[in-house]
């Protein structure tokens, strides 16, 4: 029985790690701009698809990965520059529709530039699973979890130890005060989109051998990542990681012990419960209503 539980946990953590990586992207962007970027899932797709197509074109895998991430980061920058910046000062609904427009556009673009089929990458270190106490985990899952751990450490270092990271946090806490100490908040916003795109693309590449990749792969991942960020508390990247793992594990346990048919509803039920009873998220800071 405990082996079964462990198996569910492995599944939950693998999936949760993906949600977490996407969720962190949401948080980073929300932090510096109060924009919920509904195109976050598309960065995941770009990372995966670009890697697949580059390596199919004969580019060695490591180089393909670097180029794919680079492409995603550039697109992240362009999205900010061409769609978000011109809309400065728009209302929440407008921004939601703009980012949804970006998401539709990027998916359409992917269908034209790449194709409409699903593709897989070979697992990075073989397909032989590892057995732990009667449960098994693929080496690719370890890559994903490792990716999350490294991302967490790097982000922690970035936000707590570097001046740019601190400037980014400062911008999220108080935009005007940030300008008054000389922080270019517009740059910070661009940077946040680039970081989000980077994280999205990396997770897209890491999961391609597990989940495969296709033009619409980002849709559901984006929504779940949004859940992760929201459960943790919007605007706190570390909380988004906790939120992602929580949602992933809750889904796996529901599928395992309750009903696999309603597994997908779990993330959203958690969201509603959290919103109703802890409106600023499990680990979020209280938000003051602006007059």
């Amino acid at each position: 029985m405990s082996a079964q539980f462990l198996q569910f946990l492995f599944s939950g953590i693998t999936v949760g790690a993906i949600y977490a990586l996407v969720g962190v992207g949401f948080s980073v962007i929300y932090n510096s701009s109060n924009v919920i970027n509904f195109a976050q899932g598309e960065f995941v797709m770009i990372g995966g698809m670009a890697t697949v197509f580059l390596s199919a074109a004969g580019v060695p895998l490591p180089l393909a990965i670097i180029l794919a991430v680079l492409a995603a980061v550039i697109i992240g920058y362009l999205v900010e520059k061409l769609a978000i910046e011109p809309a400065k000062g728009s209302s929440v609904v407008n921004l939601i529709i703009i980012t949804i427009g970006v998401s539709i556009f990027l998916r359409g673009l992917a269908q034209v530039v790449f194709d409409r089929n699903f593709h897989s990458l070979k697992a990075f270190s073989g397909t032989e699973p590892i057995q732990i106490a009667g449960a098994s985990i693929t080496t690719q899952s370890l890559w994903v979890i490792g990716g999350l751990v490294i991302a967490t450490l790097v982000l922690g270092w970035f936000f707590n130890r570097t001046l740019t990271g601190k400037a980014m946090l400062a911008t999220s806490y108080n935009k005007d005060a940030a300008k008054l100490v000389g922080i270019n908040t517009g740059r910070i916003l661009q940077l946040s989109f680039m970081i989000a795109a980077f994280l999205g693309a990396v997770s897209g590449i890491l999961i391609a051998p597990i989940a495969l990749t296709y033009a619409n792969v980002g849709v559901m991942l984006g929504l779940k990542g949004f859940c992760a960020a929201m459960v943790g508390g919007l605007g706190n990247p570390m909380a988004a990681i906790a939120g992602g793992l929580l949602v992933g594990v809750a889904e796996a346990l529901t599928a395992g012990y309750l009903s696999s048919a309603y597994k997908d509803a779990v993330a959203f039920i958690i969201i509603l419960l959290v919103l109703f009873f802890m409106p600023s998220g499990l680990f979020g800071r209280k938000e003051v209503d602006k007059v």
Partner: protein
Amino acid sequence: MNNFLQARRAGLLMLALSMAVLPLLMVNSFHYDIAIMIGINAIVCVGLNLLIGYAGQVSLGHAGFFALGAYASTILTDSYGWPSIVAMLAGALLVGVLSFIVARPILRLKGHYLAMGTLGMGIIISIILNQEVDLTGGPDGMPVPSFVIFGWEPYGNQVWYWIVAIALFISVVVALNIVESPIGRALRSLHGSELAAGTMGVDTLRFKVLIFVVSAVMASLAGSLFAHYSGFLTPTEGDFFRSIEFVTMVVLGGMASTFGAVIGAAILTILPQILAAFHDYEMMMHGLVLMGIMIFMRKGLVPTISGWLRRKPS
């Protein structure tokens, strides 16, 4: 105020006139079909506009109410043999009660949290519709029995056109009345500043709940009409993208403009038909149009264009 009443009467007259004239321009049944879909979408948007435009509350889950109304009508007429009018009203009642129950906790949320709350609610409804195969037919959907009003079965797109046109007209009248009522004024103060409205003694949550329920019921009724008209229903009518579509129609037409909601519905219903010619590039164009309008016409088409017209005195 007098001015407004005049403008409103003229607006209604124009709406009635254009709905009366439109059939003269429509060559075939396919054109009627588009017009009917515009009408059905517009009913949802007129209601949603009260919520988004006047009460300032986003909902990314209204397709859930639309689909619930549609499925209630379908299931009650199909499996239980209820008369379609009764089934339609029962669906509206169900959605009314449900939206009333969820309204309070959901509407306490603000901004993105509200968006997420309504999105979650809509997705849960959509998952239920997909999973309860025995009840709803699952993802492949189910056929809908014909609409029968006191023994008369409307057949053909021209008849449906008039049914939907009348329903839309009534919706617009109801919406305009709400906007002009004391509730409506309270609503507008809401949008301005909630704290200010709070200190003025307006029970903001109560009004928001009321509007939420009204808009949900309008969506439900439109959903019932849609189900009977199209004759076939699938859960995609209640999914996230459909909710987004409704919100986009409202925002595109112009928030806090009842006629804008109608125009927004018209444009976004016709748009895919035009974009169909672009085949591979359809999705890209669609995304670009959404972005472009939201960036360059923030207030939506109707307010922006009327702003331009006002600026240059002609």
